[in-house]
């Protein structure tokens, strides 16, 4: 019996070995290609995900919802505690609401006085979370909206409350959101009320640390963290979370978005801020465009001067 097995291996051995070597070379080549021409391979990856994951949609969503229901059911067990807790919170919220209404009125008054236009182009597209990254070291989720819905790389993504992440990788019907907790995520933030600028650097933990704070002593736990809009990555003023001090004495941010259950996400349609590209030229006198049909022959005379 043993001899038989050896004979078989001897017969198939060389062919198999060649196959293995070819496979290994192909895999190395794939990796090198990815390293050299990352965008192309990543586009291929996005297209592949686009093909594969929506097919699993019929199973992904029900299973997710079923597990969610089981967890929701489990939370009924402590419904009494929750109720008292909610009542207490509601009391606090009423006080806050009062404050908010007053502030809103004040804010509206001040805005009217200054004639400020808040970013009018900030609209959003909503999507459902299809899948997560499937790897413990990558924090990203897949949304069911893609280039078909006008999603563009780099747009900010929020849940109901706070910033969640940024679009990175768009397929036709899906797009990937790199969460702020991913170790490759870096976004510029402002800590209020002190106005300190910092970077929020994801590190695969649920509360990413603040980096490059100029004077950390001005920042205390509980301060609000909002996106600063520096570098044009995100629109300014989106709520990120609250400062908290971690066990390692570093300043971290507790996220406002509910990372435990990301369900529906809003992708903010942000447009790049207009840049002034050319150096200043002399301001020409405005030529009325439509009127001078009749005066056309007279017009050419002043024109060369405007160019100089």
């Amino acid at each position, binding site marked *: 019996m043993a001899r038989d097995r050896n004979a078989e291996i001897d017969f198939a051995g060389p062919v198999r070995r060649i196959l293995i070597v070819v496979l*290994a070379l192909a895999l*190395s080549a794939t990796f090198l290609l990815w390293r050299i021409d990352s965008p192309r391979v990543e586009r291929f990856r996005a297209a592949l995900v686009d093909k594969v994951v929506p097919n699993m949609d019929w199973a*992904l969503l029900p299973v*997710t919802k079923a597990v969610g229901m089981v967890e929701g059911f489990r939370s009924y067990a402590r419904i009494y505690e929750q109720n008292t807790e909610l009542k207490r919170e509601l009391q606090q919220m009423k006080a806050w609401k009062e404050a908010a209404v007053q502030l809103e009125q004040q804010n509206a008054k001040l805005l009217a006085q200054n004639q400020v236009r808040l970013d009018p182009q900030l609209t959003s597209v909503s999507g459902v979370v*299809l*899948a997560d990254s499937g790897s413990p070291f*990558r924090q990203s989720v897949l949304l069911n909206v893609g280039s078909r819905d006008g999603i563009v790389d780099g747009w900010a993504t929020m849940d109901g409350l706070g910033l969640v992440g940024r679009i990175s990788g768009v397929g036709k019907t899906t797009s990937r959101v790199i969460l702020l907790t991913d170790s490759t995520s870096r976004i510029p933030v402002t800590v209020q009320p002190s106005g300190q600028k910092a970077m929020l650097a994801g590190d*695969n933990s*649920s509360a990413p640390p603040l980096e490059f704070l100029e004077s950390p002593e001005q920042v205390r736990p509980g301060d609000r963290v909002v996106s600063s809009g520096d570098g044009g990555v995100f629109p300014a003023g989106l709520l990120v979370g609250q400062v908290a001090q971690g066990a390692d004495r570093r300043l971290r941010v507790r996220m406002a978005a509910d990372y435990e*259950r990301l369900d529906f996400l809003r992708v903010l349609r942000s447009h790049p801020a207009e840049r002034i590209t050319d150096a200043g030229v002399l301001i020409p006198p405005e030529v009325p465009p439509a009127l001078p049909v009749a005066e056309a022959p007279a017009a050419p005379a002043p024109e060369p001067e405007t160019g100089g």
Partner: protein
Amino acid sequence: MIDPVTARRWTYRALFVALAALLLFLRLLPLSTLPARIPGPDLMLCITFAWVLRRPDFVPALAIVAVFVIEDMLAMRPPGLWALFVLLGSEFLRDRAGAMRGLPFLAEWATVTAVMAIMLLANRLVLALVMVPQTGLGPTLLQLLTTVAAYPLVVAASHLALGLRAPGELDGMRSRA
């Protein structure tokens, strides 16, 4: 008429791919998007190695490569690299599968642990050489630990639930009977 050995072999090959699809599906479920404190074990790697050591003919290299390349693509890993190391590791174990059958399970466990550790280090080394940003050493080592800890469970599960037995075990049982 398909001969039963071939039928059995193809059944298990299909089972391997189906298990891979199921595990990948479960991992993609967006149940909790909070980063895990302790990364879960890489069950697919455990299954691959356990099966390669028991029935090398049930897990052809092509199936292993296909499964891990797809996993690379969907799990946002650098495509091809981890699949390459899994292929090399499984080939290494495949060559020694016959010799390992006589040894106690502890020896097999130690060998598999060593192979996994070497694969992990090689993976990190290559990524560092071509300067790809990667996660810290701590979480990856933790995942290695959980994977190594899950290995005996995977072996027991494939033995009991899926009826996967090494040919040697079968022969031994027969001779005893």
